[in-house]
């Protein structure tokens, strides 16, 4: 019987069709000695369908902490005893962060707020902030502001926000174990509105939340059904004071299996290394991921935690002969 990787070589690599949920599960269950082959195939798939460029992004928190939602992994929920305090970034500092991001060669700058959805104050801050960035910096502006109304979707389009991030976080069947203040379906509704608006859809999640491998495969299959432009892949970084604060960091081998599996599920999507990669995979993990299906990175710090220096990632890209995707290539 042909192995799942032999099968994927034909369907995914040659035909550009992602694996089904059952196939994804098989990749997540591969024995240790086949992980390297899975990553190698995922890399070939990425090179064939996405090319060698790597999309580089910086992210910043416009409004930190004090969120009324209860996503169990999140240090920014106001419902847990997390030490993260509520704070707003002013517009000059927002523009400065965008400038520093652009200086790394990044083409993407994502503005994030810890909210259920935007209120009038946040929308005004966005309007002023995006205009100030566009006047001062050449960079694509993306946003992540929670659940949206149709009017807010239209407003963001009119501001020139080109991509919207809204993570499903985990599969539909596991979501109620992770979030009780809103539903997976509510998130899906926002994603549909974003898709119809013409903004690019950025939607991923976090693995290692306690979901089974079956549920991890379910999640990848559900993302494949959504067909986002970009999928950010986070690995749980257990945060003190949150309900998942005592969970272990994921086994690095499982993280690598997941990277390969998500690429084989989503051959043509931008697959971005996001939070938790440093703590889960260490410094070498960045290289393994970039040679295993990942074709985008968040450089520098995250929203409430720190990343490795942008220069370390940029030097690695140079060494791997993977060009940073230019701003002009994305317009």
């Amino acid at each position: 019987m042909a192995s799942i990787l032999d099968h994927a070589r034909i369907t995914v690599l040659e035909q550009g069709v992602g694996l089904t949920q059952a196939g994804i599960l098989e990749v997540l269950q591969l024995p240790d000695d086949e992980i390297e082959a899975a990553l190698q195939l995922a890399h070939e798939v990425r090179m064939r369908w996405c090319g060698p460029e790597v999309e580089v992004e910086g992210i910043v928190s416009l409004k930190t902490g004090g969120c009324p939602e209860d996503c169990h992994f999140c240090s920014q929920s106001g419902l847990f005893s997390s030490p993260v305090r509520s704070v707003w970034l002013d517009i000059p500092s927002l523009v400065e962060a965008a400038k520093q991001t652009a200086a790394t060669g990044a083409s993407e700058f994502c503005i994030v707020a810890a909210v259920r959805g935007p209120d009038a104050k946040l929308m005004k801050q966005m309007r002023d902030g995006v205009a100030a960035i566009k006047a001062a910096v050449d960079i694509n502006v993306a946003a992540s502001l929670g659940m949206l109304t149709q009017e807010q979707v239209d407003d963001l389009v009119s501001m020139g926000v080109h991509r919207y991030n809204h993570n499903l976080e985990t599969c539909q069947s596991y979501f109620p174990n992770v979030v009780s203040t809103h539903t997976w379906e509510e998130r899906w509704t926002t994603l549909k509105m974003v898709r119809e608006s013409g903004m690019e859809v950025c939607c991923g999640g976090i693995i290692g939340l306690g979901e089974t491998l079956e549920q991890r495969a379910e999640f990848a299959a559900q993302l494949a059904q959504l067909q986002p432009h970009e999928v950010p892949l986070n690995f749980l970084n257990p945060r003190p004071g949150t309900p998942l604060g005592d969970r272990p960091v994921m086994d690095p081998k499982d993280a690598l299996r997941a990277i390969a599996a998500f690429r084989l599920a989503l051959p043509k999507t931008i697959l971005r290394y996001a939070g938790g990669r440093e703590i889960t995979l260490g410094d070498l993990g960045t290289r393994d991921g970039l040679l295993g299906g990942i074709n985008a990175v968040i450089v520098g710090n995250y929203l409430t935690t720190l990343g490795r220096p942008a220069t370390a990632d940029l030097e690695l890209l140079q060494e791997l002969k993977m060009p940073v995707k230019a701003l002009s290539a994305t317009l």
Partner: protein
Amino acid sequence: MTYCDRCGDEGVHEACAQARALEPPRYCRHCRRRLKVQVVPSGWSATCVEHGAIDG
């Protein structure tokens, strides 16, 4: 008395110090108040209402 700037408890903690390589401080070392922290792509800033700005 000094407090751990990661967990806010008294003293110095090896595991917290290690974790701090990838985290900004969260508590003031002098008074254990929670800090106002802003992380940006290339750094962070932190302030205690009592003791002012905290250095890296």
